[in-house]
C-alpha cells in the first residue's frame, strides 16, 4: 500500500516529527511504499542541515536523510512555508539574494501542489502535527 505522510511541526519541539519518522520506518519495514513525505508549517525545519543535537540524543534531520537514501524517499519541503521560516536551498538562496542556504541532503523544496498530489496518488495520507 502507498502512504503519503504530512509533517506539520519542526524537530525537537514537538514529537510529531519523531512519530512521523517511526511510522514511515515501520511502514517501509512492513512492505509498504511511501509515496512522499511532505513537510509543511514548521515541519520545514526538519530539512535544515545546521542542527547539532546533543550527542546522546537522536539526530532527527540525519535520520530522515538516511531513511530517504536507503529507500529513495521523496522528502519535500513546502516552499511557501520554508520562505517564511528561513529554510533555503542553493537556488532559492540565489533567487532571494541570500548569502547562505541550509537545506539538508535528501530534501527538496517544492510547491504545495506536491501535497495535493500526495493526497491523490497515495492510498492513505497520514498527518502528524500539534
Amino acid at each position, binding site marked *: 500500500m502507498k502512504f503519503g505522510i504530512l509533517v506539520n511541526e519542526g524537530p525537537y519541539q514537538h514529537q510529531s516529527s519523531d512519530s512521523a519518522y517511526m511510522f514511515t520506518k515501520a511502514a517501509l519495514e512492513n512492505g509498504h511504499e511511501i509515496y512522499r513525505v511532505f513537510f509543511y508549517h514548521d515541519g520545514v525545519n526538519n530539512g535544515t542541515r545546521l542542527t547539532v543535537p546533543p550527542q546522546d540524543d537522536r539526530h532527527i534531520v540525519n535520520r530522515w536523510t538516511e531513511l530517504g537514501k536507503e529507500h529513495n524517499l521523496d522528502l519535500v519541503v513546502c516552499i511557501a512555508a520554508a520562505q517564511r521560516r528561513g529554510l533555503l536551498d542553493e537556488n532559492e538562496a540565489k533567487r532571494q539574494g541570500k548569502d547562505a542556504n541550509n537545506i539538508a541532503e535528501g530534501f527538496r523544496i517544492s510547491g504545495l*501542489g506536491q501535497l495535493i498530489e500526495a493526497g*491523490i496518488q497515495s492510498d492513505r495520507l497520514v498527518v502528524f502535527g500539534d
Partner: protein
Amino acid sequence: MTENVTKKFLYVNRKAPYGTIYALESLEVVLIGAAFEQDVSVAFIDDGVYQLKKDQSTDGIGMKNFSPTYNALGDYEVTQIYVDKESLDERGLTADDLMNLVYEDEDDDYAEKSSISIVNRDELAKLMEQQDVVLSF
C-alpha cells in the same frame, strides 16, 4: 501533472486564526488544491469556526488580515463549506456572525448562492466518512 483521478478531499480546521498560523496556511492549501479539480469540502469545527467570523481587523496586531481571502473560495469553485452547529452554539455564535461566503451557480443561471452549510453532529460525521483524503490543520 497527475493521473486523472478524482478524489474527495476534506480540509478540517479546528484552530482559531492569528494565535497560530494553521488557519492561514490551511487556506493556502485549499486554494492551491482547487487547481487539481478534486471534489473539495472544507469543515470548520471547534475554534475553527472563529476563522469565519466577520469584521476581522488586524491593524492593531501588525499581522495581515487574511479573512477576505475566504471570499475567493467561491471563485476557485470551493463551494462546499461546512460549519459545525454545536461549535457555534457553545461559542454563542450564529450564522449572522460569519462572513457571507457565496458562489455563482453555473447550473442555475449564475445565481449567487451561499457556500456555507451549518451542519449538526450527524451530518458532519457522515460527511467525514465519505472522504478519500482528510487533511487536518
